[in-house]
């Protein structure tokens, strides 16, 4: 019995550290709607700075002072980030801020290694909480007891802050309806900045408090960020109590789950999230999001098919790309194939995100399923390459059909997180089912047949399929189905009123996107000659998101440019420097500031503004559009 009590308390201690970080993320998201990918980076910075301070100043005051000061220092960094970077892009398309915070995360990962060196650092134990307390023959670390108390204390302070101060009232109001708060004359700028500071402070505090039990190292951020997102979503976005309950739920299920299934930790949080979201689409304590008050057709320039001149230009670009084997070497051709494959992958996600308005955080699942589909068919069934390429993506189709059915019942960030959960479940199956998938050692020897083996042939194959994918998706965008999909995206109520079955339309779009992603994965398997669980991992899903956002969400084919720029740059930087993350991150941050609508999106609006001013028609429309923005 004593054992179960102690296991329960241990779970509570894990929950406390998770809650600190999660509450910060939840507050930030609730008010600013920023999916703050850099939250883990702030957590890590908190730990590193606290390490330095506590090593420098010994004693109880030095330790506890060091922890608090570290959290404050990071909070100031957070304020700077908010003021210098995020303020510029609040009006960018939804999720664009994710791109900025992703760039920051990349930079911080390299910066901490530059400052603190590559080795794992182990900080001091907390003065006064070094030992353990005996509980009927079981030891409970006294620091765990401290954390168990701290969790509810922080919860209480936050509750008081939100219920009893004017600032808290404003924050709650903004969480519920920030447009209304702005209309009532509240200075949103400082409200956002202060909320961001509080959130970052909590993240850094959570990181700093890990010193006595963890090692401080440069991968801490990624280790926590996904779990924290999951906790926030299970609890319900913007709900502090929800975050607390979810942290306890996840930690306790893990603590007791490993007694029965020792391998469950790897997937547990995602299983819980998938179940919770299917049963309660807004998390445990979340409320349905108020319908967005955005003007239908906010997209400033209504989409239109290419003019014949533009078609010619695209054709010319394609012809030039086709000529690459005449002057490029084998390496250039292989890189070209890889870029073409990522163009396919990015346009498939772009189709879902821009046309369908459904941002998937787990799109790599269908890419990976396509790749595994090919690997199974080629290695186990021994089918010829053409057949594999045609049938392999069907695994992506099946996956998208099954998961998409559940996912499209949700919307916004909940949709994104459910797709993430499904992707992680698929990933862990590939990772765990060693007998079939080879586990993390993957499936080797999936090389193309002779006719496609030479780099130039494979390049032409990839390029051809990429061009085909872009064209087909464009045709779909401007087909009646595409219009129905955009109608569902822009105004669910009105589209329903005119008789569009929104869920079915979205589901179909999800399946189309999944299948195209599967096609990209199938080609990728042949390009690399092998398949690994990596091919469906979170980082690949994030890469795809970055490509789409970089190109511009509010464009028809911006993802093509996003994929080319991001992938080419990534490959080049990794090859040229060991600090590729720092440079790439800085580049992304610069792009975000220079092109607040993505590369293509910003270019588009510049061109159309010129066009408008030259023909000088309807200043009224322009001004109306700007108010809408």
């Amino acid at each position: 019995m004593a054992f179960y009590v102690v296991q329960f308390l241990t779970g509570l201690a894990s929950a406390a550290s998770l809650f600190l970080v999660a509450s910060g993320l939840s507050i930030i998201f609730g008010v600013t709607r920023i999916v703050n990918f850099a939250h883990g980076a702030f957590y890590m910075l908190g730990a590193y700075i606290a390490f330095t301070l506590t090593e420098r100043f010994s004693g109880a005051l030095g330790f506890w002072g060091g922890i608090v000061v570290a959290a404050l220092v990071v909070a100031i960094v957070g304020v700077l980030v908010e003021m210098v970077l995020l303020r510029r892009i609040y009006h960018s398309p939804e999720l664009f801020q994710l791109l900025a915070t992703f760039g920051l995360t990349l930079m911080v990962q390299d910066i901490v290694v530059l400052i603190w060196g590559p080795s794992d650092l182990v900080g001091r134990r907390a003065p006064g909480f070094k030992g353990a307390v005996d509980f009927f023959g079981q030891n409970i670390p006294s620091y765990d007891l401290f954390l168990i108390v701290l969790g509810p204390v922080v919860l209480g302070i936050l509750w008081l802050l939100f219920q009893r101060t004017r600032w808290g009232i404003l924050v709650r109001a903004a969480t519920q309806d920030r447009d209304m708060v702005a209309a009532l004359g509240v200075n949103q700028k400082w409200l956002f900045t202060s909320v961001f500071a509080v959130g970052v402070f909590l993240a850094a505090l959570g990181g700093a408090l890990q010193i006595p039990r963890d090692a401080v190292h440069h991968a801490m951020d990624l280790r926590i960020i996904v779990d924290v997102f999951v906790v926030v979503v299970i609890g319900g976005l913007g709900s502090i109590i929800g975050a607390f309950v979810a942290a306890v739920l996840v930690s306790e299920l893990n603590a007791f789950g490993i007694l029965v299934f020792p391998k469950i930790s790897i997937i547990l949080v995602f299983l819980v999230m998938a179940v919770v979201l299917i049963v309660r689409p807004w998390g445990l304590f979340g409320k349905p999001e108020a319908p967005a008050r955005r003007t239908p057709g906010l997209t400033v320039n209504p989409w239109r098919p290419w003019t014949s001149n533009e078609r010619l230009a695209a054709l010319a670009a394609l012809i030039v790309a086709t000529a690459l084997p005449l002057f490029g070497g084998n390496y250039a051709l292989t890189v070209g194939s890889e870029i073409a494959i990522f163009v396919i992958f990015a346009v498939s996600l772009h189709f879902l995100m821009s046309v369908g308005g459904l941002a998937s955080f787990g799109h790599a699942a269908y890419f990976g399923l396509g790749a595994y589909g090919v690997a199974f068919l080629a290695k186990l069934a021994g089918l010829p390459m053409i057949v594999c390429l045609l049938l392999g993506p069907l695994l992506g189709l099946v996956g998208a059909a099954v998961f998409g059915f559940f996912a499209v019942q949700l919307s916004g960030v909940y949709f994104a997180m459910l797709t993430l959960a499904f992707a992680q479940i698929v990933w862990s199956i590939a990772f765990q089912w060693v007998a079939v998938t080879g586990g993390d050692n993957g499936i080797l020897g999936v090389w193309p047949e002779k006719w496609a083996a030479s780099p130039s042939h494979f390049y032409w194959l990839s390029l051809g399929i990429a061009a085909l994918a872009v064209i087909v998706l464009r045709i779909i965008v401007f087909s009646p189905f595409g219009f129905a999909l955009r109608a569902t995206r822009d105004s669910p109520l009105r589209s329903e009123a005119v008789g569009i079955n929104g869920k079915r339309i979205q589901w179909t779009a999800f399946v189309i996107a999944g299948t195209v992603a599967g096609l990209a994965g199938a080609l990728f398997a042949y390009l690399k000659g092998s398949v690994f669980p990596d091919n469906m991992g979170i980082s690949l899903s994030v890469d795809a998101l970055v490509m789409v956002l970089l190109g511009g969400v509010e464009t028809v084919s911006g993802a093509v440019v996003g994929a080319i720029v991001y992938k080419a740059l990534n490959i080049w930087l990794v090859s040229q420097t060991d600090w590729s993350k720092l440079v790439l991150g800085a580049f992304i941050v610069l792009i975000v500031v220079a092109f607040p609508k993505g590369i293509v999106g910003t270019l588009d609006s510049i061109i159309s503004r010129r066009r408008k001013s030259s023909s000088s028609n309807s200043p009224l429309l322009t001004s109306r559009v700007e108010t809408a923005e």
Partner: protein
Amino acid sequence: MRNYLIGAGLAVLVAGMADAAMAQSEIKIGEINSYSLLPAFTEPYRKGWQLAVEEINAAGGINGKKLVVISKDDNGKPADAQTAANELVSSENVAMLAGTFLSNIGLAVSDFANQKKVFFLAAEPLTDAITWSKGNRYTFRLRPSNYMQAAMLVEAAAKLPAKRWATIAPNYEYGQSAVAVFKKLMSEKRPDIVWVDEQWPPQGKIDAGPVVQAVAAANPEAILNVTFGADLVKLVREGNTRGLFKDRAVVSFLTGEPEYLDPLKDETPEGWIVTGYPWYAIKTPEHEAFLKAYQAKFKDYPRLGSIVGYQTIKSAAAILTKANSTDPEKLIAATEGLSVSSPFGEITFRKIDHQSTLGAYVGKTALKDGKGVMVESSYKKGSDYLPGDAEIEKLRPKD
């Protein structure tokens, strides 16, 4: 669409720069490792091979030609490692590939080498598959494999009186196969042993408190640990506070390597049986020479990564010198059965499975001046801990 042009232009530019750098009086080795993902291991590793390159060129290079190592980061991803391998082979025209740390990356590059018929000397990946079940004629491996390290530990572990064993290992191929081999070899030597619990925390994400509690609840007499890095730190701290290691024997993979032992500082648990690298206690002339040169160049002590990096390039140079050619078939012929000296004594690249006989040190952890050290350590030759030829013939596919 039109931006294909930019991508193409960029790629051509890269290829062009590489071509210009070609020179006749050089021999190039293409090296790939997880520099950005695992700097704790790969920084000392890089220093190790840099020292080797310097020594080789000071001694006249490879049959009079200058040795150049072109090093690439793999981002910790198999797919990126293949892109790097492709660049090294297609644009840099390297004579051979070398390096890699993670098992899945090692396997991806080895499959690439097999497909493109390029010589590959795997430095660090521990998986048995790379030389056995997925072995191929183009791939050789330097470090003692999972099996060999398990066999070394089993030798010491079997002498323990403990009968009830529990295991803690990261939940991926390395952890799984380490536990599987250890269990198999251990149960062969000690049929009386029972395995009472196993814990599989996800790599890099151990929730140490509940894991330690769960293991303690099974009340084992001895524990096998396979976690390393940050997970090990968390496990040790929770285990120390909760008294998990008190009066229990612990056998642990890799924990004696300075990369993993040094961060533990004064929390180093005492008396664990570990594999590792006690650089302060090795008094052979080969090692003293290496240590002196390393400390003189870098003003730092070597980690195990330094040895691996140093020996990878030293072995590669010996192979290239003996083959006196960059033809992969001649390189393979030169490597099979080749003996080279190393800081750990002479090692041989076996013909039968392309595994080197580099060994490892087995000893016990101890605390000295607030730091973790390995004591009572002794060198275990790799050749003594490999299965018989007949068994390997069964494990390894025919070329």
